[in-house]
């Protein structure tokens, strides 16, 4: 299965080449690669309708968290994730404000203790693909616990 509106032909063709499979140590007995698995998707059982409790446990352990959203996505839209983070009930420690990449506003963010909610302006579902520069800066900032 291929996700709607996504063109994965090139990578599918490349990954299915015999010499690529050999280089990646893929057994010859395995079926061709595809971006999504019908067998898994059709037999998958969803157990969690929300991961709120899981987040609260993780944050209580002192872990750092970042929830980011390309703000033109409609499969998992930014507003739903913003509401999710706000609904965790953690006191806001940083107001909603802009962040900058390459001298331009790249989105907005707000912080609640050790969790940050951040938007990537103009990007869709696959943020690193459609906003690669801002995504890399965001990634590095999170890893180093820096300021957005």
């Amino acid at each position: 299965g291929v996700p709607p509106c996504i063109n994965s032909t090139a990578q599918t063709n490349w990954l299915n080449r015999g010499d690529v499979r050999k280089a990646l140590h893929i057994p010859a007995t395995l079926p061709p690669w595809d971006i999504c698995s019908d067998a898994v998707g059709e037999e998958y059982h969803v157990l969690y309708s929300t991961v709120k409790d899981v987040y609260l446990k993780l944050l209580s352990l002192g872990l750092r968290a970042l929830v980011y959203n390309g703000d033109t996505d409609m499969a998992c839209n930014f507003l739903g994730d913003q509401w999710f983070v706000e609904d965790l009930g953690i006191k806001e420690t940083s107001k909603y404000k802009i962040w900058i990449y390459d001298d331009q506003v790249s989105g907005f963010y707000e912080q609640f203790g050790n969790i940050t909610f951040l938007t990537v302006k103009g990007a869709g579902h696959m943020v690193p693909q459609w906003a690669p520069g801002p995504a890399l800066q965001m990634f590095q900032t999170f890893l180093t616990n820096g300021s957005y």
Partner: protein
Amino acid sequence: QYAPDEVTDLPGMTFKPNYRQWSGYLKAGQGKFLHYWFVTSQHDPMKDPVVLWLNGGPGCSSLDGFLSENGPFHVNNDGATLYENVFSWNKYANMLYLESPAGVGYSYSDDQKYETDDDKVAADNYQALQSFFVKFPNFTRNEFFIFGESYGGIYVPTLSLRVATGQAKINFKGFSVGNGLSSFALNDESLIYFGYYHGLFGEDLWRDLNNNCCNKEGCNFYNSSSDSCKTQVNIAFNIVYQSGLNEYSLYLDCEGRRGFSKAYEKSMSHLFRNYRKTLHTNQFSGPRSSSVSLS
């Protein structure tokens, strides 16, 4: 490092990488083997963090993350040659891509049974992670983070909890989710507002949604018991998903519209599950015909 898995040469790679990479298998549950692809940092591999990347679905491959999103190289349109991604996340981190669960991509199970659930996926991924650090013991001291996208909104926190509370010695520091599914209710509920305030719904539909799904206490677009509300929400969801818009990026063209598999819709059935059953079967024909007239 696990020498047998090292990738020394890749077809279509015309440049010399300044990082090392390994591809092979990590043992998960009984008879399950998850394919991984590990690339070291271009900066300082022994000091930089190790980051696990998981795509969503459920049932979609993290190699899409590697080859289209944040990996060090992507595939040209010819499907044969590769080009460098200057914004690769391995500029600052050692990146581990895991095809999960078994049955996805090149991951497999000996018995070829691929029925699974959220908790089993988390358990298998945790086991695979331990298998990774057995193969790559030099990286156990590096800081470790888990990143994911889409249905990774479920995969990432559930795996993170196992890593944070489990026995394995992993220097776990944090996690991140991009465009993730965190709450079915909030995802559905917010989409109606997103659609209206991006100009996807007209005033008539917005009025009908409000009249049929809202009361003094608020609106319920997620699981209303009102049939008339369900009808209006269906119309709204049809506009978002069936009118020809790119649901993953509102302002981008929809590529390969005719080619996508309906099986993928089944794999994405976590989205709007209260409405999916009727999404294609109701008689609404507005978006397609109206898009013609609008154009």
